[in-house]
C-alpha cells in the first residue's frame, strides 16, 4: 500500500521537475464574469465564474484566451507554487481570434517568473505538451500529444471568424483554455477549443504562433483593431468545362469568385466570375491553396497576416484577360452583426411597455424568434445588401403587458420600418422618434399588419407603473 503510494509520488515529482521552468511562467486565472441578458436587457446580468490558464510573456503581461476573460467583472491570477491571488485586468482583448493580454495590478507578481518565448509552426506528427488547469484537480496539469493537422478552422468564440489552427491529439478540457502548448521549451500555440468526447475523440485545437504574433503586433499601437478580410467567396476550378469556358489552361491553377460581399474590401474591385490566379506573388491552385512559408495553406492566409490599410495584390483573369489589381483592406463592418459580441451592454428602448432592440447574434441566441422576415434579414444581412437599408435590424422584441399595449402582442419580433414617417435605421432613430412629442405614435413594421398606434398621453400616464412593475431602472440604453 505504502509502496504503491511512493511510486505514484515519485512519478509526479519527476514530471514536476521537468515542467518546472514552464510552471514558473504558468498562470491560473479565476474569472468572475457577468453575462448580459438580452431577454431583459435592462438587467445587469447573471454572475458566473470560471477557471482558465495563461502564461507570462515579455513586458510583464499574461496571455490567455479572450473567452476566459470575456465580460469579466473581477479577475485574479495565481502562480504555480504561490497560493496568493493577485488581482488582474484586461489589457487587450481580441474576440475575433480569441486572444487576450492581462496586466497584473502588483508588479511583484512577476518576480521569479520567466517570460515564455514563441517558436514557429510545429511539424505534423511532432510531439507537443499542453499545460493548464483542466477539470480533475486544482493543480497544474500536463498532457502530451502530436500535431495532427494544420488548417483553417472557425473560432467558436466569435463563431464568424476562421484562422489558421493546429489540431493536436493531446487531451484538452475545460480549464486548459489559454494555456501554452510547448515544444522544445518554446510556445507553439495557445490551447483554446476542442470537441466534446461524444462528437470526436482526441481532437483539440490551439491557436498557432502566426495568429498570436499578429495579435501582439496589432496591439503595439495601444489598441486592438479587428482582422480585415477580402470579403469574398471563391469556388474551386476543378471542372474542365469551367476552365475552358473561362479561358484557363489545364494547369490546376486559379479559383473563381462566387460572391463579392457588399460593404467589404473587394466590393467594386472584384466581381463574381473573376478568376484569382496569384495573391501577392503566390500562385493559387485550383482548390484555393497556396504554397506559403509554412507549407500549403488557403490563399486567405496572405490576408490574415495583414492589417487595416494594407493592400493585397492580385492577378486576376477577367473576360479572358489578365489584370493586376490591388485591394486595400478594410473592416467588413456588416459582418460584425453576425458575430458573438462580448463586453457589450445590451441596447434597448422601452416606450409604453414596448421593448425595442437591435438584433445581433447575441440577441438571437436568447430569443430564437420565428419571424421569417427577421431571420431572413439577419441571415442575408451582408449577402443581399440588407445593411444598405438598415444599419441595424431593430425589432419590437418584447411587450411588457399593460393596458396601453394590450393589442400589440401580434407584433412581437417584427422589424420596425417607420415611426411617424421616420425611417428606422438604428435604435437611435427609435429613441429620437419617441423623444419628439406627438399626439399619436404610428409604428409601421415590415410585416403584414396594421400600424401599432400609441397615444402619447396614455403612454405617459402608464410609464411609471410599467417601469415599477417590471423593475426597470432606465427606459433606454443606447450605449454598448
Amino acid at each position, binding site marked *: 500500500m505504502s509502496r504503491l503510494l511512493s511510486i505514484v509520488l515519485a512519478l509526479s515529482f519527476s514530471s514536476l521537475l521537468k515542467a518546472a521552468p514552464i510552471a514558473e511562467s504558468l498562470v491560473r486565472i479565476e474569472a468572475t464574469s457577468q453575462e448580459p441578458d438580452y431577454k431583459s436587457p435592462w438587467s445587469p446580468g447573471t454572475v458566473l465564474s470560471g477557471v482558465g490558464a495563461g502564461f507570462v510573456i515579455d513586458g510583464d503581461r499574461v496571455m490567455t484566451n479572450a473567452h476566459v476573460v470575456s465580460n469579466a467583472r473581477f479577475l485574479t491570477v495565481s502562480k504555480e507554487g504561490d497560493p496568493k491571488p493577485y488581482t488582474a485586468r484586461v489589457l487587450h482583448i481580441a474576440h475575433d481570434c480569441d486572444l487576450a493580454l492581462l496586466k497584473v495590478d502588483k508588479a511583484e507578481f512577476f518576480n521569479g517568473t520567466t517570460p515564455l518565448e514563441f517558436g514557429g509552426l510545429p511539424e505534423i506528427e511532432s510531439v507537443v505538451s499542453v499545460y493548464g488547469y483542466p477539470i480533475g484537480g486544482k493543480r497544474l496539469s500536463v498532457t502530451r500529444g502530436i500535431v495532427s493537422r494544420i488548417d483553417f478552422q472557425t473560432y467558436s468564440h466569435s463563431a464568424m471568424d476562421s484562422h489558421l489552427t493546429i489540431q493536436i491529439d493531446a487531451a484538452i478540457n475545460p480549464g486548459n483554455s489559454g494555456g501554452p502548448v510547448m515544444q522544445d521549451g518554446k510556445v507553439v500555440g495557445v490551447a483554446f477549443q476542442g470537441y466534446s468526447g461524444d462528437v470526436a475523440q482526441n481532437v483539440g485545437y490551439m491557436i498557432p504562433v502566426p495568429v498570436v504574433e499578429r495579435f501582439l503586433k496589432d496591439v503595439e499601437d495601444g489598441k486592438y483593431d479587428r482582422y480585415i478580410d477580402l470579403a469574398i467567396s471563391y469556388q474551386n476550378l*476543378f471542372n474542365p468545362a469551367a476552365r475552358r469556358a473561362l479561358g484557363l489552361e489545364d494547369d490546376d491553377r486559379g479559383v473563381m469568385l462566387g460572391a463579392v460581399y457588399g460593404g467589404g474590401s473587394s466590393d467594386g474591385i472584384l466581381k463574381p466570375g473573376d478568376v484569382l490566379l496569384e495573391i501577392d506573388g503566390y500562385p493559387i491552385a485550383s482548390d484555393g491553396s497556396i504554397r506559403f512559408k509554412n507549407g500549403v495553406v488557403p490563399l486567405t492566409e496572405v490576408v490574415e497576416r495583414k492589417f487595416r490599410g494594407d493592400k493585397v495584390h492580385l492577378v486576376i483573369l477577367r473576360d479572358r484577360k489578365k489584370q493586376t489589381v490591388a485591394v486595400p483592406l478594410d473592416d467588413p463592418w456588416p459582418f460584425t452583426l453576425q458575430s458573438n459580441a462580448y463586453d457589450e451592454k445590451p441596447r434597448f428602448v422601452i416606450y409604453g411597455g414596448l421593448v425595442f432592440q437591435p438584433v445581433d447574434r447575441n440577441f438571437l441566441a436568447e430569443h430564437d424568434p420565428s419571424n421569417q422576415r427577421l431571420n*431572413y434579414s439577419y441571415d442575408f444581412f451582408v449577402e443581399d445588401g440588407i445593411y444598405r437599408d438598415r444599419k441595424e435590424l431593430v425589432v419590437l422584441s418584447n411587450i411588457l403587458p399593460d393596458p396601453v399595449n394590450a393589442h400589440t402582442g401580434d407584433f412581437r419580433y417584427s422589424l420596425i420600418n417607420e415611426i411617424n414617417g421616420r425611417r428606422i435605421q438604428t435604435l437611435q432613430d427609435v429613441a429620437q422618434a419617441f423623444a419628439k412629442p406627438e399626439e*399619436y405614435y404610428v409604428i409601421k413594421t415590415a410585416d403584414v399588419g396594421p*400600424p401599432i*398606434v400609441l397615444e402619447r398621453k396614455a403612454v405617459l400616464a402608464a410609464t411609471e407603473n410599467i417601469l415599477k412593475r417590471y423593475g426597470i431602472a432606465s427606459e433606454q440604453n443606447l450605449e454598448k
Partner: protein
Amino acid sequence: MNPLLPIVILLFFIQASVLGGTFQPRFKNQTTAPEVTSKSILRVNSTNQVYDLGSPWQKKPPTGRRGLGVLVGDGSILVTADLVANSNFIELELPANAKKSTATIQHIDYESNLALLRATDPEFLAGMIPLKLAEKISIGDSATVLQFEPNGEIARTTGRISSISIAPYPLENVGLLVFKISMPLQQRDGSFTLPAVHGGRLVGLLMRYDSRNQTADIIPMPIISRFLASTTQPDFKGFPRLGVSFAPLRDPQLRRFIGLTEPGGIYVTKVTPKSSAASAGLREGDVILAVNGLPLDQDGNYEDADYGRILFSHITGTLTPAGGKVVLKILRSGKIEEVPVAMKPLDRSSVVSPSFLSDAAPPYFILGGMVFVELSRPYLQEWGAEWTKNAPQRLVNYDAFQDELPADRGKIVVLAQILPTPDTIGYENIENVVIKELNGRPVKSIADLAEAAKHPVEGFQKIKLEEDPTWLFLDAASIEANRTQLMEHYELPATERLNPATSGQP
C-alpha cells in the same frame, strides 16, 4: 338563502342532459326519417403515391388510406380529396357482401377537400340508395358518425355539434365553414374520412379528428353542395376568394387614430395581387365595415341566418358563386364608400410558389446531371415539419414573400441537386440555389430552361445563379454525348418533364 340558488339550477341542468342522453328518439325528424344504412355508404381504399420532389422523376413509396364514401346520387361517391389525392389505385368495397370494384376520380377540389368517385363496374352500385344532404343544422343538434365494424355492421357514434365556424382546411390559407362535433371516436379505418348524418341525411364528411380533445371536424353540407354544383360547371376553377388579409380592429387607440366611430370593422393589411379585391381597387389600410349590408364586428364576423356569428368569408367564399358580386362597405381616408366586388377564384397560374401541387407530376429538367425543379411549398415541406427553419432560407423567403416579387418574376427555378458525372466535377456540393440565366437567357420556368439549353454559347452551357457560386459551366457537346449514360447510371426514365401532366387519373 342566496348561496343555495346556483346549486339548485346546476342540478336541474345535469338532470336535463341525462334525460336527453337516455331517451334517444327525442328529435322530431329522427322518429320519422329512416336511419342511414349500409345501402348508402361503402368502403373506399386508396393507394396513394406522391412525387419525390427532390428527385421528381420518381415517386415515394405508396401509402394506403381507407375511409368511407357516401353515395350522393347518380353513381357518384363523395369522399374527401385527402383520401384520394395522388392515388394510383382506388378500390370500392361493400362490406355486407365483400363485393369490390375499382374506381376513378370524377372531380376533385383540393380547396374544399372533396372528391367524387365513380365505380368502373357499372353494376357495382345496383340497389344502393343515394343520400340527401341535410337542410338545416344548428349548434346543439346531434350528428352521428358512421363507421363499419369488421363484420360489415354499421357502428354509430353520436355527438353534438358544439361549434360552427370558419376554420382551416388542409390546404394552407383556406378557411371554410366547419362543424365541430364533440364525440369519442374509435379509429377503425386508415383515415377519418367518414360520413356524419342526422335524421337520415348527410350532414357532412369528417375530415380530421382530434383524439385529445375528442372533436371531429366536419366538411358541412353548404360546402358539399357548392362542390356538387361546381362539378357541373366545365370551367370551374375553385371557390371564389376575396384575396385580402386583415387584422381585427380591437385596439381603441388604432380605432381613434383612423377616425373610426362606427362599431366593428376590420383592417385590410394586404391585398393579394390580381385577386377579386385587387380588381375592385381595395387597398391596404381600408376598413371593411359590412359585406352585402351585413355589418362586421371587430373580428370580421357577421350574423348568419343559419349559423350565427361566423366570419364574413363564408359570404364571399361560399355563398357567392364565382362570377357573382358582393358589395363591401368600407372606410377609406375617413370616408365611407360602397365597393362592388366581382368575385373570382384565385388565379393559380400566376402563383410563383404554389402552396399545393394537386396530382400533377412536377416539371423538371436535368442538364448534365444538374437537376432543376420549380419552387413550390411542397418542395420546401420535404424538409419536414420544421421546414420554415430547416429548408434553405432563401427559398423559404421566396415562398413566404412571393407577393412582393416583381409581377414578371415567373417561377423560381432551383438547382435542386447534382447527380455527379464527369461533367460536373467540382460542383458536387452545390444544391438548392436559384438559377437566374442559362446561356444569357432569363429562366422563369422549367420550359424556359429547356429552351435556353438548346442554345449553348461557344460550346458551353453557361449557368448564372442568383447567388454564390454565381457561374457554372458545362461542356454542351460532352453532356449531350453522356446523356444516355447518365440516364442508365442513375436509372432516369427521362431527363425532362416540361409540362405539369396529371398522373393516372383524368
